[in-house]
């Protein structure tokens, strides 16, 4: 939220360092880590980043606007499928063209679904978004000629950036996705700090009050919904290149559930919360796949229950509070 700094002191630089330290360190970590880590783990890191983008997109409509959607994977799947179809069926290999189209398709889907879903609120909004998401899933399963049915689409090559002589490896791909995350993070951050973003939070707190203050709240929710869909589409496109295959699971309620978990674990109240959530959940999934693959839904469910009952506000919020206390020693009053 907005803060006015009224008294800069001579220790301001130290204060800034303490405040921004963790962010800088984390940022450096994201850049250095893949170089330190064995190759087979690098792909897991890419997955973290992709789901971070996905989760940030959900948090825009959920954490900031207050709209919990049970079908956000629909746009993720739309982005993934469109990208896969354009590349494998229609031979549109150029990454820039195919990804732009795919992201737009995801946004278009959100535009259509948004009109339907925003006619209702609360419980019914939840159910409608669930149903709409499932519709996409069933279309993906049934429209075999286009989507490959239950088997999906396979053989998606690495993106063709149009750079002559460039070949991919896992590390390059990681940095490619990292760049995408940085761009998305930056764009979403600006949006959230803007008057538009503040209005979204006002709507979350009290839509009645916002209306009476002169805001066309439906329009705000609708735009947020579409933007959320667009960025989910970005994540979907990246995922299709990451995995090389796309299946109906990408649009299923299971994927919608996982991204929900990522957001609540990370925190809906902190902008970068979803990124932490992605780290935690993808790591969990990785360890589960090593030691108890058949029990992953059990672990997933358990983490949900624990998050709701005990981890109020998410990891990031609690981290911030902790850091706020530490920072206080150095004179910065607000964490």
């Amino acid at each position, binding site marked *: 939220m907005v803060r006015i700094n009224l008294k800069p002191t001579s220790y301001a630089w130290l204060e800034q360092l303490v405040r921004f330290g963790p962010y800088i360190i984390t940022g450096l970590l994201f850049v250095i880590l893949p170089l330190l880590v064995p190759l087979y783990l690098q792909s897991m890191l890419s997955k973290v980043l992709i789901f971070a983008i996905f989760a940030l997109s959900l948090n825009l409509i959920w954490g900031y606007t207050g709209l*919990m959607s*049970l079908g956000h994977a629909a746009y993720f799947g739309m982005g993934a499928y469109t990208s896969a179809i354009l590349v494998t069926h229609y031979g549109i290999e150029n990454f820039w063209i195919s990804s732009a189209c795919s992201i737009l398709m995801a946004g278009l889907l959100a535009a259509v679904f948004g009109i*339907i879903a925003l*006619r*209702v609120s*609360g*419980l*019914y909004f*939840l*159910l*409608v978004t669930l*149903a*709409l998401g*499932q*519709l996409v899933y*069933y*279309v993906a399963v*049934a429209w075999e000629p286009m989507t490959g049915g239950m088997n999906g689409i396979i053989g998606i090559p690495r993106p063709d950036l149009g750079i002559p002589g460039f070949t991919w490896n896992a590390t390059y791909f990681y940095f490619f996705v990292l760049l995408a995350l940085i761009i998305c993070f930056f764009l979403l951050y600006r949006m959230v700090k803007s008057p538009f973003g503040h209005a979204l939070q006002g709507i979350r707190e009290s839509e009645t009050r916002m209306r009476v203050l002169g805001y066309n709240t439906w329009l705000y929710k609708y735009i947020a919904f579409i933007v959320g869909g667009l960025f989910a589409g970005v994540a979907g496109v990246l995922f299709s290149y990451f995995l090389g295959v796309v299946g109906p699971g990408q649009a299923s*309620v299971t994927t919608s*559930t996982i991204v*929900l*978990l990522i957001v*609540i674990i990370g925190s809906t109240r902190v902008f970068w919360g979803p990124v932490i959530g992605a780290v935690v959940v993808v790591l969990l999934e990785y360890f589960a796949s090593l030691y108890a693959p*058949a*029990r*992953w*839904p*059990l672990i*997933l*469910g*358990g*983490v*949900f*229950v624990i*998050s*709701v*009952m005990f981890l109020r506000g998410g990891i990031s919020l609690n981290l911030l509070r902790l850091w706020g206390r530490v920072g206080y020693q150095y004179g910065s009053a607000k964490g």
Partner: protein
Amino acid sequence: MDLLVINLLNGISFGMILFLFAMGLSITLGVMGVLNLTHGALFMIGGFVGLSVVNAGGNFWLAVLLGGITAGLVGLAMEWLFLRRLYRQLDDQVLLTLGLVYILGNIALWIYGGRVKIFRPPSLLASPIAIGDYTFPLYRLALIAIGVVAFIGLWWLIERTRIGAIIRAGMDNREMATGLGVNYPLACSAVFTLGAFVGGFAGSLATPVIGVVFTMSLDILLYALIVVVVGGPGSVLGTLVGALIIGVIDAFGKALIQDFAMFTMYIVLIIMLLVKPAGILGRKQV
């Protein structure tokens, strides 16, 4: 013509199952304002417990009863441990109950494996009866009869007894109902448990007809949600009407179109939510 009757009877018997199952959801939603996504898992638990009892040599009716009781106990545990702390926090209810669905589904997979299982109806009801050129299972007719009896019982309980009146009052105004001299939270727990029992009972009864499998929780829940939305939360008659309508639509849909089921049901749900969220006979706007 015979085929028409058969599909109609199929639809009505399935509708009766849905009615029993959806009642639990309807009351919980209407009374406690809680969206309990695990209700589908209770249906599944009823089916699996029934299966275990029958496989252990138990009597059919005992199996069905135990299925219901187990589901009732699980429901009670869930309500007591988790749901009563989340009154009116919709987001949290959804997340929590979703998590429980995954846990329960995976446990079912662990214990029973991944394939659809059924057990046979009692030999008394096993023989088919003839309708025109076709045969129709007597068991399904028995389901219809059970449904009617259950409807009368539940309707009487909700609409005609003091407990029912207090519950209905609580649907409209929880604070007031608490002041009526009855331990309202206890009444809520009792009603919730009854709903869970009936839901599990329905799951058990349904197993000879539709089988039981670890993935069914959310699918059957969807049917119940449509029923509750169509019929209106909190209304016994509404739930029956809604269940019969959905059951019949489902039966005819499956007979006419190949890959009918879920896709069309989701579209029905969306249309109902947009057009008439309070249902046909609904008494409460959620």
